């Protein structure tokens, strides 16, 4: 189908975009890469009065390292992150996750900011943002604030962003010395949304003993879910099987999945356990 009529503006700067968004009120929406939003418009599951297109805002498309923080502009395309040497050096989990987003043509166009604000609980960016405790920089015409990814996602496709705000930057902590990670995604075909996905990052000392751990679950909860209970179980351990099982059981107990055609709630919960074990094992064997 075709989208219902709307009005369109293509600002040349973030300030212009914020002014347009403010002027458009509640009926104005931001268009980033359009790989989720345009299908909704085409299917007429969504309709809007006006669209503010961010695609010419080159000042929102960047990857920049600032000491221990990796700053990624919201309009950076998935593909740019996937193949970025700077990201690979600073936080390789992001390259791994980017490669799993959709298909090549989708990664060429879709953006990290668009994916985060779309907030599909099975998408890769919300998952790794929750796992790595990313900070999201939101701007409106008269305010700028930073929201933790772990507090940003409220429900499927619902976030803490206000109608007049634009997500401008995503800040990931650079992987510390000794950091290892695991990323496991279950889907029927490459490029599909995850049925269940797990991202984790651990820091290990020379003997393989864990000092910090962070694990998040995608696809099995109304939001990407950081499971804080995993950390006390794995910290101090060397990743033996009993510890991984106990940690994975914590993750499975924390989620409240819903069922659909791709898998029942019970199946998803079981898969959380399986994939959490694998992700932790992957991290330890890196």
């Amino acid at each position: 189908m075709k989208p219902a009529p709307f009005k369109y503006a293509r600002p040349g700067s973030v300030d212009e975009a914020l002014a347009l968004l403010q002027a458009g009120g509640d009926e104005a929406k931001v268009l980033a890469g359009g790989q989720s939003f345009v299908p909704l418009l085409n299917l007429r599951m969504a309709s809007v009065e006006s669209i503010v297109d961010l695609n010419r805002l080159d000042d929102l498309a960047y990857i920049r390292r600032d000491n221990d923080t990796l700053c990624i502009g919201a309009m950076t395309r998935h593909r740019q992150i996937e193949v970025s040497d700077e990201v690979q050096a600073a936080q390789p989990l992001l390259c791994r996750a980017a490669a799993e987003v959709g298909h090549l043509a989708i990664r060429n166009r879709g953006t990290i900011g668009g994916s985060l604000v779309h907030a599909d609980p099975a998408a890769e960016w919300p998952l790794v943002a929750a796992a790595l405790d990313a900070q999201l920089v939101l701007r409106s015409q008269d305010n700028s604030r930073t929201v933790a990814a772990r507090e940003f996602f409220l429900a499927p496709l619902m976030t803490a962003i206000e109608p007049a705000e634009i997500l401008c930057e995503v800040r990931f902590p650079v992987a510390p010395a000794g950091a290892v990670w695991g990323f496991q995604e279950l889907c029927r075909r490459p490029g599909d949304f995850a049925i269940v996905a797990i991202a984790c990052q651990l820091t290990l000392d020379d003997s393989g003993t864990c000092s910090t751990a962070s694990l998040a679950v995608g696809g099995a909860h109304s939001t990407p879910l950081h499971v804080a209970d995993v950390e006390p179980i794995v910290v101090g351990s060397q990743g033996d099987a009993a510890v991984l099982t106990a940690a994975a059981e914590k993750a499975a107990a924390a989620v409240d999945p819903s069922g659909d055609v791709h898998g029942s709630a019970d199946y998803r919960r079981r898969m959380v356990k399986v994939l959490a074990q694998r992700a932790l094992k992957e991290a330890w064997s890196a």
Partner: protein
Amino acid sequence: MAATQFTEYQTIRVRVNGHEYEREVPVRRLLADFIRHDLGLTATHLGCEHGVCGACTIIMDDESVRSCLLFAVQADGAELQTLEGLADGDKMHPLQQSFWDNHALQCGFCTSGFLMSAVDLLNKNPRPSEEEIRHGLSGNLCRCTGYANIVKAVQAVAEQSQS
């Protein structure tokens, strides 16, 4: 190129397969419809119109994109390549020839999308493994071939370019 007022129509300029076009379009017109209806270039096919089937894949500024997930106004100033721009006169592009040689199509509806995706895939990775070809083409659906011959066709071109 900025358009800082909300409008319902815009005049856009695009370069498609080396030809300049200037047209006024309603802002809601999908790029795929613009290419087919406004420009009459009907090799780009529309299957699902929501980004799942890949039939409408074209090259925009050297990257494959789904033309059903872009509005024509977004292509203002862009350089586009559609299937019509692939052959060199009467001489088919190596990928087209290889699809022919390997019987990589039956009904042909998906073929233009596959070819444009394969162009981008080989641009980014001139020597892909079979696995990489399958991943690279995973965003395109074919209901006839079972994909085996499509993969074979792309593989054959990759091997030719190595020798």
